[in-house]
C-alpha cells in the first residue's frame, strides 16, 4: 500500500515536471509564428466546425430539461417567469461552457492525443526533428491556438441553442409567454454573464488541446500506448476543466 502510494506520487511528480517543461516549450515556440499561424486555420476548422453539431445537440436538451425542471420546482411558490432566470443563468454561467468543455474533452482531446501519439510511435516526430522542424510549433501550438479560438465560438452557439430551447419549451409546454420568459432572462442579467462563459471556454480550449498534445507527445509503446494516451488525456482534461471551473468562479465572480 505504502509502495503503491509512493509510486503514484513519483509518477505524479514526473507528470507535473513533464507538463511544466511542455508548457515552457509551447511558450518558446510561440515566436515561430511563420510555422504555426498557417496551420492554425486548418485546426480551427477541424476542432471547431466538426464539434458544433454535438455541442449544439447537448445544449438543446439541457435547455429543454432546465425549463421543465425549474417550472416543476417553482410551481405555486415562485412566479413562473423565474424559469427564464434559471435557464439563462445556469446555461450561461455553468452548463453551457462546462458541458461543452467536457464533451469536447472527449472528442477533441482524444483526437489530438491519438494523432500526435501515432506520430510519436511511428517516429514521425523524430523525422520532423531531423528536418530541423520544431514539432511543438508544428504540431502543438496550432492545436492549442485552435482550441483557444474555437471553443468560445462553439460555446457561444451552445448558449444560443440552450436558451433558445428553453424558450421554446416554455412557450409550448409550459404556461409561459415569450414576454415573461424574456423578462426573466433579463431580470438579473449583467454584461459579464456573457464574457464569463467565453473566458471559461477559451481556457477549456487551451486545457483540452494542451493536455491532449502532452499525452500524445509522450506516448510510448505502439497502438496500445496511443490508446492509453487518449484515455489519459480525456480523464485529465475533464478533471482540469472542473478544477478550473471552480477556480474561475472563485476568481471572477
Amino acid at each position: 500500500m505504502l509502495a503503491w502510494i509512493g509510486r503514484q506520487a513519483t509518477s505524479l511528480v514526473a507528470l507535473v515536471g513533464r507538463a511544466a517543461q511542455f508548457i515552457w516549450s509551447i511558450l518558446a515556440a510561440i515566436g515561430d509564428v511563420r510555422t504555426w499561424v498557417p496551420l492554425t486555420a486548418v485546426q480551427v476548422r477541424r476542432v471547431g466546425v466538426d464539434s458544433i453539431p454535438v455541442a449544439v445537440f447537448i445544449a438543446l436538451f439541457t435547455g429543454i430539461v432546465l425549463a421543465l425542471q425549474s417550472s416543476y420546482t417553482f410551481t405555486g411558490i415562485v412566479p413562473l417567469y423565474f424559469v427564464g432566470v434559471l435557464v439563462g443563468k445556469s446555461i450561461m454561467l455553468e452548463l453551457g461552457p462546462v458541458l461543452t468543455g467536457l464533451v469536447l474533452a472527449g472528442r477533441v482531446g482524444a483526437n489530438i492525443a491519438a494523432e500526435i501519439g501515432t506520430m510519436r510511435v511511428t517516429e514521425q516526430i523524430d523525422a520532423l526533428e531531423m528536418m530541423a522542424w520544431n514539432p511543438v510549433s508544428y504540431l502543438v501550438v496550432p492545436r492549442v491556438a485552435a482550441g483557444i479560438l474555437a471553443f468560445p465560438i462553439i460555446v457561444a452557439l451552445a448558449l444560443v441553442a440552450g436558451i433558445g430551447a428553453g424558450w421554446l419549451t416554455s412557450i409550448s409546454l409550459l404556461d409561459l409567454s415569450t414576454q415573461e420568459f424574456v423578462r426573466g432572462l433579463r431580470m438579473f442579467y449583467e454584461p459579464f454573464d456573457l464574457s464569463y462563459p467565453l473566458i471559461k471556454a477559451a481556457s477549456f480550449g487551451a486545457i483540452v488541446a494542451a493536455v491532449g498534445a502532452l499525452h500524445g507527445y509522450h506516448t510510448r509503446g505502439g497502438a496500445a500506448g496511443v490508446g492509453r494516451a487518449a484515455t489519459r488525456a480525456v480523464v485529465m482534461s475533464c478533471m482540469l476543466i472542473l478544477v478550473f471551473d471552480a477556480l474561475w468562479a472563485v476568481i471572477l465572480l
Partner: protein
Amino acid sequence: MIRLTGVSKGFGGTSVLTGLDLEVPTGTTLAVIGRSGTGKSVLLKCVARLLYADAGFVMVGGEDVGQADPRALRRIRSRMGYVFQFAALFDSMTIGENVEAPLRREGVPPTEARRRAEAVLERVGLGGSADSLPAELSGGMRKRAGIARAVVAEPDYLLYDEPTTGLDPVTTAVIDELMVGLKRDLGATGIVVTHDIRSALRVADSVALLHEGRLHTEGTPQEIRDSTDPLVRAFVEGKSELWPEHSGPGR
C-alpha cells in the same frame, strides 16, 4: 567524421549500449551489424541526438552533438539524412510532399524542390508514386520513399536504419548502388545498420559487429569475410549453432 567515444545508453535500469567506441572517417561508410535488439537503432538515434546518450561523447564533423545548443543542433541535423527503420513518412502528406519537405525547409523554391524530389523518387524506383499517400504504398515502397526523403537534400552524413530490410534482391541492389553513389558523388559519411550481410559487404568500407552493447569486431569487408571469430562466422553464414549460447539480445 563521426566518432563515438564511450557511449552508453540505457532505459530505466536495462542498459543497451555500454561504452561503445566507433569511428567513421569522412567519406566512408560503416556497416553496423548485430542481432535484433542489441541497440543498433539506439546507436543511430544517439548520433542524431534523437536519444540522449547517458555517457560518452558523440562527435559529428568536429562538433559535440551532446553539447550542441538548439541552433547548433539544427545546423548539425540539417547536414544529416536519417532513414528510419519503419520509414516514418508524414502520413498526412503525399510521397512527393514528404520528399520535398527537407528542401522546402531549406528554402529551395517549390518548382525546384518538386523537380529534385521527382528525380530522387525516380532513382529509388518510385517515379509514378509522388501523388500517393504513404498508406497507399507497400512496406518496401514506403521504405524507399523514406530513403528518398533522407538523401534528397544531399546531406554530408547519412544514417540508414535497415535500408534494405523487406526489399526484394533487385531493389536491394538498386538501393546499395544508390548508397555507394551518394558516397562517391557527395563524399557522404555514412552509417548503415543492416541485417543483410551481403548488402553490408557490398556498400561498406568497414563493418562493425555490435554485441552486448559494445563493439565486438570491426574490419574491412574482406577481413569480415575471412574472420574466424565465431560470432562473425555465425553472422556471415547465418547459422544459429555457431552463436555462443546464452548470449542472445539484451543480456
